[in-house]
């Protein structure tokens, strides 16, 4: 018997993002669809940034996880449209980022508070950071540098 779509979403929610392993691929909002077509499972995945080097690892991780649960016929489709937005980050994903020390994205375009001490007295070091999805910021109170998840 083939597993339910709901079950598969749960399995995918156990697959960590390779670069920010504290959140899952589902938290990140890049799984856009899970669907059975006959006996073949189709998973639609959207890239975060078009050049993100983690994309191929992500597909490999999805494949490994689902095969581990006994799914043999699997197709991973790239879905470009609509383009990924940080609005699709789940609320639990945002909380996990914050606890991990990465400030979650805000519509204002900058972090709301230092993830280490909570201060709002912050300054931007660079619009880019350690991965395409992050920018580098620093707290003026505790003086710690931290990553901010860019809002796009």
């Amino acid at each position: 018997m083939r597993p339910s779509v709901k079950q598969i979403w749960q399995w995918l929610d156990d697959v960590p993002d390779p670069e920010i392993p504290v959140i899952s691929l589902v938290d990140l909002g890049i799984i856009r669809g899970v669907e059975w077509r006959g006996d073949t499972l189709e998973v639609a995945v959207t890239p975060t940034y078009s050049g993100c080097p983690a994309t191929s690892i992500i597909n490999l991780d999805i494949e490994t996880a689902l095969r581990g649960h006994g799914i043999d016929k699997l197709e991973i489709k790239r879905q470009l449209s609509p383009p990924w937005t940080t609005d699709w980050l789940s609320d639990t994903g945002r909380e996990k980022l914050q606890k991990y020390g990465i400030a979650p994205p805000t519509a204002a375009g900058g972090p709301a508070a230092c993830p280490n001490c909570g201060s709002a007295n912050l300054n931007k070091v660079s619009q880019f950071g350690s991965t395409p999805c992050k920018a580098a910021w620093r707290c003026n109170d505790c003086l710690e540098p931290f990553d901010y998840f860019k809002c796009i």
Partner: protein
Amino acid sequence: MAQDQALFEYLLRLGDNTLVLGHRVSEWCGHSPVLEEDIALANTALDLIGQTQLWLGLAGEVEGKGRDADTLAMLRDIWDFRNLLLVELPNGDFGQTLMRQFLFDAWQSINLGRLMNSTDPRIAEIAAKASKEAAYHVERSGDTVVGLGDGTDESHARMQKALDYLWPYVGEMFLSDDVDATLVKAGIAPDPASLRDDYDALIGRVMDSATLTIPDSRFTHKGGKTGKTHTEHLGHVLTSMQWLQRAYPGASW
């Protein structure tokens, strides 16, 4: 001109712009003035190479001869490249690199905005994806041009020199030929000339804040997007970019 042939040419132009500029920008990796700028440039290059994969991937599909993005990028020679001359010019100093980036980003963000309304849904969806990245790039390159232009006497002089050097390569972005005419007619791409007003307005605002003077001339070098006359610099780019695939055809890991 047949529409598929025009579309293939046009996609090469889009993909070669981001490929060649992405490679140029990546040359800074490990050499930037400060670590944060090094990371920023490497990230910009990565976005551009990612966009290249999408544009050249679609170009290969449209061509229908089994060439994928890698084949188009690594196994074409200089006369088959369709990028603007601007993006193949040498990096120069950090200021010149950022000035070139801004002059390109400004055009790219406007062009992608128009391509989002393309009648070809494959182009519209790539444009929608890439335009988010381009918006981020133009914000940063614009801010940096202002910071350095309206900075010290030394940085101001260097940025003015960079603008004077690069300006004669800007006009090529707005030239049209049969490829453009065919796609404009089909609603697939905008008329390049129609982007000029928005471009001038954006560049004008930024150069004003940067206290830099835009040269009073519309003379333009051309021949990049048509492939007719590239500069000698592109040959050097390809020599370093393609050597591995040339020396070891089909190499993979």
